[in-house]
C-alpha cells in the first residue's frame, strides 16, 4: 500500500454538458485533482448502470456520473430518463448494502468549469477518506477453490 492512498475515480459524463464543462475547466486552466479519468458518452441516457458495476469490479474506488442539468439535455429528455434510472439503481445498491457514497451523481453544464473542478476535488477527498474499495474485489473468492486469492491479487497488481 502506497504511503498516501490515491483513489482511482472514473467519471461517466455526457458529451454536451459535463464533458464540455471539463473542457472549459481546461481552457480556463482551473487546477484540480489528477485522480479522475473521464469516459465520454453522448448523453447520460446512454450510461448503462452495468458499466458502474464493472468499473468498481475492475478497481475503481469512486465514480462520478454527470450530465446536463434538467431541461438542458441536448436530446431534450435523456437526462430525465437517466435521473430515474439513477434513483432506482442507487436505492437498489443501498438495499444490497453497497457503499453508494462512492458514487457522486451531478449536473455540470458546459459553463460550469469551476463546478467540475470542485466536484472532482470533493469526490477525490471523500473517496480518499473512505479508503481503497476492497469489499467488492474481495468477493472474488469461491469457497472451495482453496487458493490464497489475496496473494494472486498482489501478484497481478
Amino acid at each position, binding site marked *: 500500500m502506497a504511503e498516501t492512498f*490515491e483513489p*482511482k475515480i*472514473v467519471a461517466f459524463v455526457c*458529451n454536451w454538458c459535463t*464533458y*464540455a464543462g*471539463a*473542457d472549459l*475547466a*481546461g*481552457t480556463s*486552466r*482551473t*487546477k*484540480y485533482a*489528477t485522480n479522475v*479519468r*473521464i*469516459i*465520454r*458518452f*453522448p*448523453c447520460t*441516457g*446512454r*450510461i*448503462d*448502470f452495468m*458499466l458502474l458495476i*464493472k*468499473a468498481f469490479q*475492475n*478497481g*475503481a474506488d469512486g465514480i462520478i456520473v454527470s450530465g446536463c442539468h434538467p*431541461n438542458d439535455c*441536448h*436530446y*431534450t*429528455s*435523456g437526462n430525465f*430518463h*437517466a435521473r430515474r*434510472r439513477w434513483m432506482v439503481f442507487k436505492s437498489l445498491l443501498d438495499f444490497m448494502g453497497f457503499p453508494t457514497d462512492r458514487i457522486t451523481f451531478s449536473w455540470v453544464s458546459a459553463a460550469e468549469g469551476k463546478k467540475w*473542478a470542485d466536484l472532482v476535488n470533493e469526490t477525490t477527498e471523500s473517496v480518499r477518506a473512505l479508503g481503497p474499495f476492497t469489499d467488492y474485489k474481495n468477493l472474488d473468492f469461491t469457497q472451495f477453490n482453496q487458493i490464497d486469492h489475496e496473494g494472486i491479487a498482489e501478484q497481478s497488481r
Partner: protein
Amino acid sequence: MARIGVFICHCGENISATVDVEKVARLASKLSGVAFSVDYKYMCSDPGQTLIVDAIRKHKLTGIVVGACSPRMHEGTFRKAAEKAGINPYFCEMANIREHCSWVHPKSDETTQKALDIVRTMVEKVKNDTALFPIKVPVTKTALVIGGGIAGIQAALDIANAGHQVILVEKTPSIGGHMSQLSETFPTLDCSQCILTPRMVEVAQHPNITLHTFAEVENVTGFIGNFDVNIRLKAKSVDFSKCTGCGSCWQKCPSKKIPDEFNAGMSFRTAIYTPFPQAVPNKPVIDRANCTWFTKDGKCGVCAKICPMGAIDYTIQDEIINVKVGAIVTATGFDIKHSDFFPEYGYGKHPDIIDGLQFERLASASGPTGGEIRRPSDGKVPETVVFLACAGSRDKAKGIEYCSKICCMYTAKHAMLYKHKNHHGKAYVFYMDIRSAGKSYDEFVRRAIEEDDVNYIRGRVSKIYEKNGKLMVVGVDTLLNAKPVTIEADLVVLATAVVANEDAESVAQKLHISYDKHKFFAEAHPKLKPVETNTAGITLAGACQSAKDIPETVAQASAAAAKTIILFSGSELTREPVVATVNRSAAPVYTTCTGCFLCQEVCPYQAIEREEIRDRAGNLLMNAARVNAGLCQGCGTCVAMCRNKSIDLQGFSNQQMLSEVMGLLNEPFE
C-alpha cells in the same frame, strides 16, 4: 490483430509543459495492439497531419489515437487525415490530454500517468471501433405548409421563391388568417389588409405553390425527407374550374342569418359564401351545415339555378389526396378566449362586452360598421370605452399562467384608434404591467397615453354589471393606494388571452410532434432549436408555438422556410452514422430483440419502429424493434434501457464503452 498508431501532440508547450510526452509515447508503444507511437510538436499542423497520414500508410495501421486536445476541437481534423490515408475516419479517436490533463494539473508523474491512462483508454476503444459510413436519406424536394395565415403564407413564399414546390393547406375557404381580420397594425398603424392581400395574391399566382383551401391534413406517415401525407379536400359544392367568382350566388342565397366568422360573429353571412371580399381564392363554397339544400334535403337550390356557369354541384364529395413531401412547416395559428370565458364579466351575455378581434372588426373599414366604432347592442357611438388588458392571461386561477404578449400593444392601438375616430370619447385601459418591448413599441404606447390621452389605470377589474344602460366597470387603481374605481362605460373591450387552437392536440398527434400543457406545439430546444420540432423535418412557424405578433411570426416563418431550404439543398440528406441499431442475424435467430417495445417510449425522436419478421411463407414469426436512421439522433437512451442489449449505438457501442472502462482500470505495467 489490431495495429494501432498513437500520436502524442505537444501542442507547443500546452501539453509538454506538464506532461512528459516522450514517456507517454514510449510507454504507449508497449501497449498490446499498438504498432506505432510517436510524439510531435503540433499534430494539427500540416506537417503533423502528414506525419499521421504517412505513418498510417507506412505501418499499415488499422486505427489511430491522437493524444492532443478535446475531440470537440479537432476530431474532425484528424478523422479527415485518417480518411486521407485510406482508413475509415471512425477508426480515429482522440485522447483528450490537454483540456482534461495538461491544462488542469501541475507538471508531475501523476499528470503524465493520467495522460497515459487516457491514451490507453482510447487505444482500447479504437480496437473496438467499426467502420461507419454517413447515412444518406433521399429527400423529396416538396414542402407541405399547414395553415394559410401570415406565417404559412410567408413560409410558403420563401420556400417557393427558392425554387421548391410547396403545398399549402388551409382549413377555411380562404387564406389570410387572423391578420386579414385586423384593422390597423401596431406600431405603424398601417392597414393590415393593404400589406397582406398582395402576399395572398402572390401565393395564389405562384407557379411553385399548390394551394388547397377548405382542406385539412388527414394523417402523416414517414420521416424527414420522406413524408407521406393524406389531405382531405372538403366538398366545396362549387366547381372551381367553372366558377368565375361573380358572386351572384351568395347575393341570392336565401339563408342569410349565419353568424359571420370573419366579422367575429358581429354580422351575418349566407350559406354559400366567400369569407371576405379579398378572399383568395375569391370563389364561394357552400357551408353544408347551414344550407337548406343539405339540411332540408333538396329544398331551395337557388344558387344552382342562378349560377351562369353552372358551377354549383351539390353532389361533390370530400376527396382524399395523397402527397409525398420532404418537409413540413406547421403554421396552424392560434385562437383567443372569448368574452363568455369570464363569469366576472357576465359570461359574454352583454353584447357590449366584446373581445379584441371583435373590436378589430368594428374598427376595420371592411367591418360590419364600415369602420365606425358603434357598439353592437344599439349601434350607438360609445362615449366611454374601457379596455381590459390581461383578460385571462397571467392568471393561474384561469389556468393561463403565460403572457399573451400581443395584448399590451393592440390594446394601446385599440384605444388610439377609438380616440382618433371619436376625439371627445373617453378611453380607459386597465392593465397589470405594460409589456412593450420591441422596436418603437414603447414609443407607441407612450403616444397613446401622452398624445391621445388614453387613461391608463394600473389595476384589475373585479366585475362588470349593467346599470341603467351603462356598463359599470368595477376595478381598483393600485397606483392610488389601491383605491377602488368604478367607471360607467358604453363599451368594454377584453384583451382576451391568446390560446392554442381547439384541434391543436389532434394536429400534433397527426404530425407526431410534442406540445406543452397549453397545447402550444413544442420546439426541439427552447434556445438552440426554437423553430425545429423533435420530429426531424417538421418545423414550426407563428402562434401555433406560442403567442407572437406579426413581425415575430414572419421572422419565424422565414426561419422555418430557411430550415426547409437547407434540407432541400441536396438530393440526399447526410447524417452522422452515430445512430442506434437493433441487431439482426440469420435465421433461426433473426434478432435478439424480444419486441417488448418498451424502448419506443424513451426515444425523443419517435425513431423506433415496429418490424414484423416473417418466414418465406409469410407467417409472422416475431415483432422486433427497428431504428429509423433518418430520425435517430444518437443519444443512446434506448441502448441503456434495452434489457438484453439488442439495441446498440454505433460509435459508442457496448463493446467500446466497456472496453474503455476495462482498459482504463487495468494497468498492464508501471
